[in-house]
């Protein structure tokens, strides 16, 4: 088998694609992942991270069962990046609980709680709800209560990719598939544009698994196959700080479910759901979407508009192509599509799916691939833990031993579990790398260097996904130039590329900050302009250097 021949080539490095490459590699298949951008850079990078019990999907009991299984698997294989969150469903009128399928949901939910180790759907008295969450409207008459689990979607995807590499897979990011050629009985030739070198390269896979999410139909088309997708745009508002103690879910203006979750040091409000045919790279949140979310939450959290908005984020969901039904009646399950009946053998695609079932989607697809390859190999992704789960981390002891603040270590542990030790080894060698580089959370230089050396980032944006750099309230005001310098050092960038790296990162942040621009974020933005335009004079860089407009900048 030549170096460029693979058993399985996976296209797309989201949660599903990385789960597929991990599964395939763990079964001993020679596997390659091709991602056009970075790991978790599209749909999964814009989700809230909930690994849902499937409460809303009471009409799909089998899918609910699957969700429950998967929550338990993830808690086993990725315990260090999973956390529990109580969620309230406060109502101003009892009819909200007694109608709209909620009771059916309660019933189905209750059937599966024991396995997840949580109580059934509880109904709380208003005073209890207000004690839990003083931000609620004082006139709430009752509140539902459930418990859900959340995972860090970036870390999950990166860890799956890292684990796949550990099992022998090749993972190429910034490799955009440009052509698929079906070679009868041999497999599929895959051409891709290596965005780092500018070269077109070709590899061959006996089976190609198309996990390209909202681009999956385009990938299928390259091979002459047909894939229908129902694509919808979902936007979130990200507020500064945890303005709520626990999660809150409510009915939106149009009766859809919307939620507000404390997440890291922010609060997420989401989501919208709008049919879309746009290029996902060009999408930004609209004023209407922002107002839709605020209006929907104002009834239940009256002061929601007083909080500071950091930014918005937008993703595109690739749903199962069920048409002429409202969004919430479309199955949230997934389908593994074998394109062989269409005459394209060796190509497998996905439609639909949720973060919670990404591992299971991979399992089903790789099972099918094995069948095509004629190999009976068993899936082990639900048994083997992901990197970083080798035990407990003694923060107090390590803090003492390495003179790093408890908080910096605790944040590191939340991202990396036992991998913390690797970073501490670096610190032993380079004591000055203890310096904190970020003002929103204490990310130390050693962790940045470690991530650059081991987790294949090529840009500051890639580092952001791995370290949460630039995701806090200041949105990179103070870490961008420092982190870019470290990246430039490690990747040996020249001075011009260093300046462009700063520009690129600020552009990407601005994309999300601009739509809801108001309040204190104006002061933050004045400061950004003060640093990068007024002092660094980088606003003039646009003309002097070769700055490429980004897709969303080009369209307007």
């Amino acid at each position, binding site marked *: 088998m030549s170096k460029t021949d693979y058993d399985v080539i996976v296209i797309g490095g989201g949660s599903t694609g990385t789960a597929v490459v991990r599964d395939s590699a763990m079964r001993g298949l020679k596997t390659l992942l091709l991602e056009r951008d970075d790991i978790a850079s599209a749909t999964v990078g814009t989700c809230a991270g909930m690994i849902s019990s499937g409460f809303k999907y009471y009409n799909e009991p089998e899918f609910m069962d699957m969700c429950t299984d998967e929550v338990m698997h993830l808690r086993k294989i990725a315990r260090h990046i999973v956390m529990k969150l109580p969620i309230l469903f406060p109502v101003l009128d009892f009819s909200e609980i007694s109608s709209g399928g909620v009771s059916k949901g309660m019933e189905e939910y209750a059937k599966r709680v024991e396995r997840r180790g949580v109580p059934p759907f509880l109904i709380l008295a208003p005073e209890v709800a207000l004690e839990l969450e003083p931000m609620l409207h004082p006139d709430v008459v009752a509140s539902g209560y459930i418990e859900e689990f959340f995972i860090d979607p970036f870390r999950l995807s990166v860890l799956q990719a890292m684990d796949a590499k550990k099992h022998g897979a090749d993972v190429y990011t910034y490799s955009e598939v440009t052509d698929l050629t079906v070679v009868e009985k041999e497999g599929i030739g895959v051409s891709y544009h290596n965005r780092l070198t500018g070269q077109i390269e070709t590899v061959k896979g006996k089976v190609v698994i198309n996990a390209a999410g909202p681009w999956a139909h385009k990938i299928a088309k390259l091979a002459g196959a047909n894939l229908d997708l129902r694509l919808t745009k979902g936007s979130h508002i990200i507020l500064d700080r945890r303005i709520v103690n626990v999660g809150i879910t409510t009915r939106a203006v149009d009766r859809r479910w919307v939620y507000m979750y404390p997440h890291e040091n922010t609060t997420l409000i989401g989501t919208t759901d709008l049919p879309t045919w746009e290029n996902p790279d060009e999408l930004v949140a609209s004023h209407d979407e922002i107002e839709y979310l605020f209006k929907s939450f104002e009834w239940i959290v009256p002061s929601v508009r007083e909080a500071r908005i950091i930014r918005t984020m937008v993703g595109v969901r690739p749903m199962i192509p069920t048409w002429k039904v409202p969004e919430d009646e479309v199955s949230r399950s997934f389908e593994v599509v074998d394109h062989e009946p269409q005459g394209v053998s060796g190509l497998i695609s996905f439609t639909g799916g949720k973060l919670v079932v990404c591992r299971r989607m991979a399992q089903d697809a790789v099972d099918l691939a094995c069948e095509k390859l004629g190999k009976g190999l068993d899936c082990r992704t639900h048994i083997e833990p992901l990197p970083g789960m080798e035990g407990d981390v003694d923060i107090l002891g390590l803090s003492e031993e390495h003179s790093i603040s*408890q908080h910096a270590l605790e944040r590191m542990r939340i991202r990396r579990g036992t991998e913390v030790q690797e970073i501490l080894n670096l610190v032993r060698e380079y004591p000055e790398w203890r310096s904190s580089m970020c*003002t929103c959370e204490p990310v130390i230089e050693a962790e940045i260097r470690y991530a650059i050396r081991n987790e294949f980032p090529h840009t500051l944006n890639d580092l952001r996904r791995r370290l949460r750099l630039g995701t806090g309230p200041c949105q990179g005001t103070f870490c961008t130039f420092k982190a870019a310098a470290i990246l430039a050092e490690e990747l040996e960038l020249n001075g011009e590329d260093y300046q462009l790296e700063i520009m690129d990162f600020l552009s990407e942040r601005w994309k999300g900050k601009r739509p809801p621009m108001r309040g204190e974020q104006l002061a933050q933005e004045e*400061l950004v302009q003060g640093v990068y335009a007024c002092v660094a004079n980088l606003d003039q860089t646009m003309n002097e250097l070769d700055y490429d407009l980004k897709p969303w900048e080009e369209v307007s």
Partner: protein
Amino acid sequence: MTEEEDYDHIMGVLREERITPYNEDELETVLSIGHCINCGLCLQHCPVVAGVGVERFSGPRSIAVELSRSPPEFWATGDKVFLCTGCGTCREVCPKNVEVPEIVNMIRARIFEHRPDLVPQELHSVDKTLLEHGLAFAPWEDLEDKAESRDMRLERLNLPFYPNRVKERAEVLFYPGCQAEERAQEVREAGKVVLEAFDVDYTLLGDFNCCGLPAILLGDDKTARELAKHLKEKVGALGTKKIVTTCAGCTSNLSYLSERDGWDIPVYHTLEYLIEEIGIESLTEKLTQSEDTQSVTVHSPCHLIRHMSRQLAEYAAQIIEAMPNAEYTESNLHDSCCGGGGMVGYHSPDVAQGVVEENLRAIERTGVSRVVAPCPLCTAHIEEMLFRTGSSVEVDDLTVFIAQRLPKKE
């Protein structure tokens, strides 16, 4: 499951996930953090950072931005958050006036509740005293010893002892604070001398209790609220119209409590009472010549100038300048911490020392013979710190310094 069981379960989950729901009166502070734009001006001006570096104390920005991070991680800030002296410089320089001092208290309260093991032991001892005695310091075992100590102090300062007055419906409640009540008793007596000199209708508390500031600073929110409640009841029972205190911390905390808990009674520091109620003219008329000319500088307590108003530093200067033979010189660091703030000295004396060093140098540079402070706690700290450096500068509480220059009754 019954309703109680549901409730217990939920509270158990919150405990497990280390989520402490914000109280309603904390919400404003929580939202205030949202104004932080991470600029770090506070870091540049923080006296603790200047004294011991960012590595030891990560500074106000870190507290506002990082440490106030999600509730489950409050505990991980235990090695930093107890090192804040609460001086309020951060809030004052902040373009957005982010309430960092209040945030510090909130975080401490959460650590105290969820991880008491991370609260410095010395603070637990203070907490024990507060719980047992309702005072920041263990009271004298023998009241005769206490009186003897008081009389010795008064004799040295040439101040009289007036009998204690406790009565209902007096105009003013004089609240000396724990330090003046139990330790620097001369300040308590000086306060009385000042009030008597202007024939103020005043009363003391029959049964003194702490205002709760130490409990707030060490994170025992429950005890702080208990103490505030007791005090409110006692003040209410006495039916006074105003409160006057000689302590900077008490002034600021009582002002806060009066507003938060609806006491509906204004709180004055002696300085404010003299300037705003008595008037500088009446005060000047009564001030007598002391034996020799004194060159004086004033130390401005953080709790007066930054937690209340900078005008109060000007009041102090105005009063010294009105004294017939006192020469006032301003120290350029008159507004920097005495080393006693935030109860840091209890558990990390090296940090307290680091914070106060520049202040002491600035006092020496003025060349004065005496530094006065409108707060018995600041006075005690500066005295101790100066003594350690072998300085010859003498230290007095400002109320004592004023009382010494007022006519005494027979």
